[in-house]
């Protein structure tokens, strides 16, 4: 279908696939055609006219925009003729007549396509002597994005991205002709999870972010590639620092994962690295407060405590921000501490801090999906927590696949944000309010007809900790039997899959609570996790931690969990350590170091190795590379090892996919009675977010969702109300969501104000009474 065909550019014969765009084919052959509005990942529009080239037509030579011209057999193209050069100079002169001379104060200077192309293709001078067009500048179009309409060259990249890619068309052109401007709709700011991408693709300094504005010049920046750890898609990113401060994160175009895009959380959640609240020295609990001590004092204290406690249980509560190398060392120390030297145990004492983690679908009977499989799938099936909020780039890829013809089937009730995209949305009549499958999948005609014998990708996860695995099993086994199925386990947190690959046996937070023996001696490590704040089991875990004999926290901040510790060992974070992470495709990717470890922070593995040493174990890893070599040995495909050397090769810059055996030992909860469905949202009150001032305001929005019938039952008619449970009363926005079933009310689990809300207790919703209450952010 797409064979190679020959075409001629500037007298040279070249080859390209039939139907490829002329501008892209030239780019691939090393011939650069200047452009503003064309972007590899957006539909071409031919608006800026900068890419005009001359082609031979039956009626002589014609100027055509190369971004909308497809390669045809024997096409003859001139990109450097006099006519083309004059057109290029003309277009640049036109663009510059109203463009303000802001370069000295504009963020984009130094990495600006308009500057660069003016130097390369533009006229030497402007002949415009009239008054330039003026707008009030800049204006805030959201809490984190600013728009300068004078600088805007109306290339429509931002509006096209918002419409085509993110599906949030909150910015659009208004007016026409010379008065055209980009703007938002009245009372509807540019609140999109993906708004930061428009700043990255804007070819001038019209869109800027409050996070980076006026911070640096591009030539001052040090840059390194890395992998984001906000969710388990693992987007490829570029870290930009200057004077040892992280200033900016950009998306890199990884064909297999994020294709250049980032969520705003992945892009802007890094200020916390330099927060004054960050713990930089080891903190020791004495009386009820912390004092700073040295590492040798800390190690001595730990050794003494372990000796003193004489055969304690040692348990690990893990987060998702550690690297594979760190998980490997955690596993090693877990194994060591649980050998016959201490209480011998058959099963591990490692618990992962994700309420929604469960056994999942691994092993030989299920085929592991890749993100590119979405593009080749005839049908995509989703049953998981909210994809848009928890795996935002996965949402973009699903959207892209649907646009290209894949069918989408969504099971309720936690994915209403993609219900509009879906061909079939299975709500109350198929999924109960307790997330049971109330109909046999074989009898759901719309499901059967669209998966039988077809290529299907399923995204499977629990919607709530109360959900029984059985309901998912019914669906997955049906799909596995009837279709060519690829499976994503929708465990959304950071490096979950890195933990699963490198830890012998992983259990859940419920298991932690149940297995905790208050009569025994207990030492608990918490590593990069804050379950007291974010887990359903938070209160129980708090009790256990208080009841423990010794708690050691490896973390960045003092928070609800770490404040209960006896020792806080401050660790390194994004950009301060080197390692690998594994994403939901089992793709192992590199994280690179660009910042020095601040204060006295060390990496998690460095602390754990010290602890092992102090207990007499002769373990010494020189560096992450060495640890990586050890853990690489255990991968199944020995031809494609994710060693640092391998991952640094140009052909592997996008990561290598490799598998290991996975062992998750988590049982369903006994109880399934919840009255309020609490879900995770993209923005919340994790310690990193509340300490990142550029975006911490985004997690302050308090709301509940319910359908209109449920609202009526509570007697609600307004958009603002109170959620009341016991002594707690929270002022909230009330969002009516008609995709929800009756009697299901959704509240966010990770928002300030909701910490004391218990999903199992009864609650009430009342309307806000007086006018002052209506001013909810």
């Amino acid at each position, binding site marked *: 279908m797409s064979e190679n065909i020959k075409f001629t550019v500037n007298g040279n014969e070249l080859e390209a696939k039939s139907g490829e765009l002329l501008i892209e084919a030239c780019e691939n052959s090393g011939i650069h055609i200047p452009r503003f509005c064309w972007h590899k990942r957006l539909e071409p529009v031919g*608006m800026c006219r900068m890419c005009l080239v001359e082609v031979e037509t039956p009626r002589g030579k*014609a100027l055509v925009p190369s971004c909308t011209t497809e390669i045809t057999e024997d096409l003859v193209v001139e990109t450097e003729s006099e006519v083309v050069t*004059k057109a290029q100079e*003309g277009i640049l002169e*036109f663009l510059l007549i109203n463009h303000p001379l802001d370069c000295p104060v504009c963020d984009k200077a130094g990495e600006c396509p308009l500057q660069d192309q003016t130097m390369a293709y533009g006229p030497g001078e402007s002949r415009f002597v*009239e008054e330039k067009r003026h707008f009030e500048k800049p204006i805030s179009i959201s809490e984190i994005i600013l728009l300068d309409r004078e600088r805007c060259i109306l290339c429509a990249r931002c509006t096209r991205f918002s419409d085509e890619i993110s599906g949030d068309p909150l910015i659009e052109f208004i007016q*026409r*002709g010379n008065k055209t401007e980009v703007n938002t709709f009245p009372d509807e700011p540019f609140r999109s999870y993906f708004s930061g991408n428009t700043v990255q693709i804007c070819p001038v300094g019209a869109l800027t972010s409050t996070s980076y504005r006026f911070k640096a010049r591009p030539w001052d920046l040090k840059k390194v590639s890395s992998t984001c750890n906000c969710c388990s898609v693992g987007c490829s990113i570029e870290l930009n620092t200057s004077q040892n401060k992280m200033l900016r994160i950009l998306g890199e175009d990884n064909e297999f994962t994020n294709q250049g895009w980032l969520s705003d959380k992945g892009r802007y959640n890094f200020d916390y690295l330099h927060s004054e609240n960050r713990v930089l020295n080891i903190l020791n609990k004495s009386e009820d407060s912390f004092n700073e001590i040295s590492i040798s004092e800390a190690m001595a204290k730990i050794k003494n405590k372990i000796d003193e406690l004489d055969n304690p249980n040692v348990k690990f509560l893990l987060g998702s921000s550690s690297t594979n190398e760190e998980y490997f060392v955690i596993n090693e120390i877990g194994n060591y501490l649980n050998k016959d030297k201490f209480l011998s145990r058959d099963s591990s004492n490692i618990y992962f801090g994700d309420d929604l983690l469960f056994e999942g679908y691994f092993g030989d009977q299920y085929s592991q999906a890749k993100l590119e499989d979405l593009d080749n799938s005839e049908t995509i099936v989703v049953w998981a927590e909210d994809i848009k909020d928890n795996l935002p780039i996965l949402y973009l890829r699903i959207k892209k696949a649907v646009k290209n013809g894949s069918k989408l089937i969504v099971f309720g009730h936690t994915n209403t944000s993609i219900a509009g995209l879906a061909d079939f949305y299975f709500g109350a009549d198929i999924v109960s309010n307790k997330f049971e499958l109330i109909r046999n999948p074989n009898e759901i005609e719309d499901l059967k007809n669209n998966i039988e014998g077809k290529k299907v990708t399923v995204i499977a996860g629990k919607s709530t900790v109360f959900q029984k695995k059985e309901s998912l099993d019914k669906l997955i086994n049906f799909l596995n039997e009837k279709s060519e199925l690829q499976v994503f386990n929708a465990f959304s947190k950071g490096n979950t899959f890195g933990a699963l690959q490198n830890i012998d046996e992983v259990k859940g937070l419920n298991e932690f609570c149940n297995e905790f023996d208050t009569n025994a001696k207990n030492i608990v490590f918490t590593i990069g996790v804050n379950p007291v704040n974010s887990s359903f089991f938070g209160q129980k875990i708090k009790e256990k931690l208080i009841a423990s004999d010794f708690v050691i926290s490896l973390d960045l901040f003092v928070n609800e969990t770490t404040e209960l510790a006896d020792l806080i060992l401050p660790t390194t974070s994004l950009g301060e350590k080197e390692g690998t992470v594994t994403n939901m495709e089992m793709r192992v990717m590199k994280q690179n170091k660009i910042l020095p470890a601040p204060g006295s922070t060390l990496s998690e593995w460095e602390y754990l190795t010290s602890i092992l040493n102090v207990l007499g174990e002769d373990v010494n890893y020189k560096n992450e590379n060495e640890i990586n070599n050890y853990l690489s040995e255990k991968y199944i495909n020995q031809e494609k090892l994710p060693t640092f050397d391998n991952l640094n090769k140009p052909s592997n810059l996008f990561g290598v996919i490799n598998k290991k055996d996975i062992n998750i030992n988590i049982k369903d909860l006994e109880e399934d009675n919840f009255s309020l469905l609490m879900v995770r949202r993209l923005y919340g009150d994790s310690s990193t977010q509340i300490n990142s001032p550029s975006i911490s305001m985004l997690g302050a929005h308090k709301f509940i969702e319910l359908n209109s019938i449920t609202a009526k039952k509570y007697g609600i008619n307004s958009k603002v109300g109170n959620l009341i449970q016991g002594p707690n009363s929270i002022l909230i926005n009330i969002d009516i969501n008609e995709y929800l079933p009756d009697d299901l009310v959704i509240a966010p689990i990770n928002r300030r104000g909701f910490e004391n809300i218990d999903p199992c207790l009864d609650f009430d919703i009342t309307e806000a009474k007086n006018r002052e209450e209506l001013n909810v952010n």
Partner: protein
Amino acid sequence: MKETLLLTKHMRENPENSHLIDVYEKNNGYSAARKVFKENNPGDVIEEIKTSNIRGRGGAGFPTGVKWGFLAEDEERYLVINADESEPGTFKDRILLERDPHQLIEGIIVTSFASNISKAFIYIRGEYAKPARRVQDAVEQAYEKGYLGKNIFDSGKDLDVVVHLGAGAYICGEETALLNSLEGRRGEPRLKPPYFPAVKGLYNKPTLVNNVETISSVPWIINNSGKDYAKLGVEGSTGTRIFSLSGHVNTPGNFEIEMGCSFGEFIDNFGNGIKENKSVKAYIPGGASAPWFTGEQLDIKMTIDDVANAGSMLGSGAVVVMDEDTNLVLAAKSIVSFFAHESCGQCTPCREGTTWLEMILERIASGRGRTSDIDLLLDVCDNISPGLAWPPQMTTICPLGPSAVSPITSLMGSFREEVESLLPKKVLINNE
């Protein structure tokens, strides 16, 4: 020299109520529709239009029969009547809409039958409030009689007509911008290729876009014959056309004539010469987009091909006459202003260039011109329309940009001294 009345016959004979359906029917109205349903041969209808050699009356002058032949096969096809008459100087569609809407509706019925179309849209410019009301009423009258709706004329075929109002944008007269506007999007032209309306038009389905006058001519062609239509006018410009005459003539107005006479004859006969007996300095042969002819070129024939060969276009048939005392720089500025105001803003050269041209002309007209301004004007024009050739090349998406260039090339081509007289004199120092 007399008018030949085809399109305007009914409205002249019934000046008070030609727009009502019973008056239309008493005058042999809807007989063409009945005829085509009786003979039931769509192919024949298209042949008849091809034989008539009628060319589009909107401005481009494309052979209508050929256009109908291009319409791609599809279950869903649409007919769109372009009643967004906005070319300055043109006011002929207005009378057809206001005074003979049923002629248009009958044309729509025949066209839809010939091309197997069951939904038609009439896009009327928002400013035409009264004509739009008349058309809407006429459509309702037709529905009542069973000429529109389900099973029209008992033929088993359906035809729905939707009247839609524009919102004040000249660019929505460009067919693809019109389709965008009809779809609820910004009225911006689409790229051709791939969005040729005959293949990918309204809602990406094959669509016929035709001018009001073109479709209004269809009933006569069916009632008489394509051959009879081709006998009127001259070869290459068959049939009759309504020309809108305005400017410094004594009797401006709409006149329906067979094509073939010269502009001079037209102006003398129907315009009754120039006011106060002045001479013609320049005239626009076909709407604001067309390059001007001078007073010395009044013998050019009013046919599509003759005007094209002389370096302009017959376009929408709007003749605007400027007498010897006209300030041509202001005239050019007025036209350029119009295009700058109406530019959709999509592409750089038109959006920025037309306003720049307007600003330069403003300075020249008000005495603040510079000696470099003439070359600057022509160079800016060249960057919008490379080569300043006719027919124009474009760096733009649609011909609006090059349209703004026409008055300036006309001004500089034939009236350069008038512009130079407004610029500061170059001072010679030491015989340089």
